[in-house]
């Protein structure tokens, strides 16, 4: 193993691999990515892997637009010999309450002003897009054709392969056991396979980023929350866009492979590191799905699983430095959107580490916002 590195990235998910790639592309040598298990074994490999530009704040719209445009060309940019399976079938986000409807009208205006081609739809128009939905359950909907879905394993692998070609070393099945800090400066990372001295450490550990923060005494205001998903047997294509509702708490997408993936958030889920599955989720999901998308009652569930959301107080990412620990950088707190923010994360963390001016509007996403009480408000999250 390498005993020294210029940058150690903790976490081999989409964020860690994207950061590694972007740093290496900017000419940084001796980058090491440490992953406790295998690439994507944490939240990335367990996520719904949808990506949308339909947000309620300008910042998130811009960041998501950047990610979408990147994923559109990722196979070529990253010279991947596989396929990240990006399918732009759109997101149909339905409003089931008056409040949502009002918000959605505002969202569409904002999105259109930023060049995002979202349209506002009546229930009847929405049904034309997903013919098997029960449109009587909704008030209106918004649709953006450019939103979509991709394969999280291949997307991450594409970043990792490209990074490896640029010299990045990946240490799989390696666990970080401690981080050495001297005079408020990062000195290196202790792992179960030995010590790596490095002046810069990036915490991209997803659900485990709180524990990594604790190793340097940085109290990151995040917690891990279990989220569950199920996947069905494949069938021939019948649903192009992602179907999503904030108030009904459901997202449901048919992947290019043909299987349906659906999941939901639940604030009552355990806030520990458990990734077990429950029958409660299976039942509630089945029930709601059969009501909203009745045709799916005849499709069979083949698997259910769970992953961790890394929740921040305002459900927005936390990017950048930590006061009092020089060389320690955060890419965490994604609150369920880490996968779609992957391309953004790589760029902005690489720029921050290299002291460059940020090319994306992330100035409000630093740790300091919590001390100042300047939380961000995003109306459109699950």
């Amino acid at each position, binding site marked *: 193993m390498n005993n020294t590195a210029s940058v150690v990235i903790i976490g081999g998910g989409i964020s860690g691999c994207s950061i590694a790639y972007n740093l290496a592309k900017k000419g940084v040598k001796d980058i090491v990515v440490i992953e406790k*298990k*295998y*690439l*994507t*074994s944490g939240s990335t*490999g367990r996520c719904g892997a949808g990506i949308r530009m339909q947000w309620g704040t300008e910042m998130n719209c811009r960041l998501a637009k950047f990610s979408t445009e990147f994923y559109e060309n990722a196979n070529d940019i990253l010279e991947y010999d*596989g396929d990240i399976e990006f399918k732009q079938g759109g997101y149909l986000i339905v409003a089931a309450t008056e409040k949502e409807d009002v918000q959605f009208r505002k969202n569409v205006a904002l999105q259109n002003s930023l060049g995002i081609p979202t349209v506002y739809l009546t229930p009847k128009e929405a049904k034309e897009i997903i013919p098997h939905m029960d449109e009587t359950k909704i008030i209106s909907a918004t649709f953006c054709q450019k939103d979509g879905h991709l394969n999280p*394993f*291949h997307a991450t*692998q594409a970043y990792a392969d490209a990074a490896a070609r640029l010299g990045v070393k990946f240490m799989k*099945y390696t666990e970080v056991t401690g981080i050495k800090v001297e005079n408020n400066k990062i000195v290196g990372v202790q792992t179960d396979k030995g010590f790596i001295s490095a002046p810069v450490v990036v915490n991209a550990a997803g659900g485990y980023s709180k524990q990594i923060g604790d190793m340097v005494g940085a109290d990151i205001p995040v917690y891990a929350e279990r989220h569950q998903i199920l*996947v*069905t*047997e494949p069938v021939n294509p019948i649903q192009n866009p992602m179907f999503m509702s904030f108030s009904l708490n459901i997202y449901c997408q048919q992947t290019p*492979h043909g299987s349906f993936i659906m999941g939901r958030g639940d604030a009552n889920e355990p806030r520990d590191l458990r990734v077990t*599955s429950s029958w409660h989720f*299976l*039942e*509630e999901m*089945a*029930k709601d*799905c*059969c009501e909203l998308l009745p045709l*799916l*009652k*005849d*499709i*069979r*569930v*083949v*698997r*259910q*699983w769970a992953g961790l959301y890394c929740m921040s107080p305002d459900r927005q990412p936390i990017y950048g430095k930590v006061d009092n620990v020089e060389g320690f950088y955060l890419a965490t707190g994604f609150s369920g959107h880490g996968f779609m923010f992957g391309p953004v994360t790589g760029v902005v963390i690489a720029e921050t580490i290299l002291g460059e001016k940020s090319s994306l509007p992330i100035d409000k996403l630093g740790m300091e916002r919590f001390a100042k009480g300047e939380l961000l408000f995003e109306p459109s999250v699950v």
Partner: protein
Amino acid sequence: MLEKTGVATEQDLQKAIPSKERLAKGPVAIIECFQRIPCNPCYTSCKKGAIKEFEDINDTPEINVEICNGCAVCVSNCPGLSIVVVDETYSEQEALVKIPYEFLPLPEEGSFVTGLDREGKAVCRAKVVKVLNTKAMDRTPIVSLAVPKDLSMTVRFMKLNDIYSDNTFVCRCEELTMGELRELIRKGFNTIDEIKRISRAGMGPCQGRTCRQLIMQELAAATGAKMSEMPISTFRPPVKPIKLGTIAGGADHE
């Protein structure tokens, strides 16, 4: 021996195969032409001047491998089809062998074929990386095959049907073949979880019942890991596919 069997002997080949050092530098032409016959297009076609001028039209070619950059122009010009280009820098585990292939149908880029040795014996599964068929090549297309590195000096031809393993199924549901599995292992996907995620093997409706053990056996054989110490993929509910409507109905009844 060559005269008797038509197959070059090791002794013959010694003359044709460049040093390890040269091979490590990049693509190079390998000219397996050992008999004096009146023929010189290799020399005349080489724009680099890598092939020494023939004093006598019957000379066998002498190549200066330090000048040759493996451009492969000679490959489609050699009437005896005795030239291949080998690139051992293609990837960590694989070498590229560029062969002339004058048959139809041409293989498709990205497909797998069977790599044959000088006796036409199947020796490996090979991936068709590129098929070049320009006008200048005048109906002698060049097929670039990715083969295991240790077979770069063995594979000299191909046949289209992938008898090695394209139809040896490890995972019936997602149709992962043994060849694809070995390819993934070669690329460094060294645990069953990694293979499952990148290939979907084990994610099908049978829930890994047919493939799990086979993948683990192949991993053990390839990596030397012990089955007993190998991490195993997660066993997720439900054990048998069940309709959403059935689950929804059951919950209603209570």
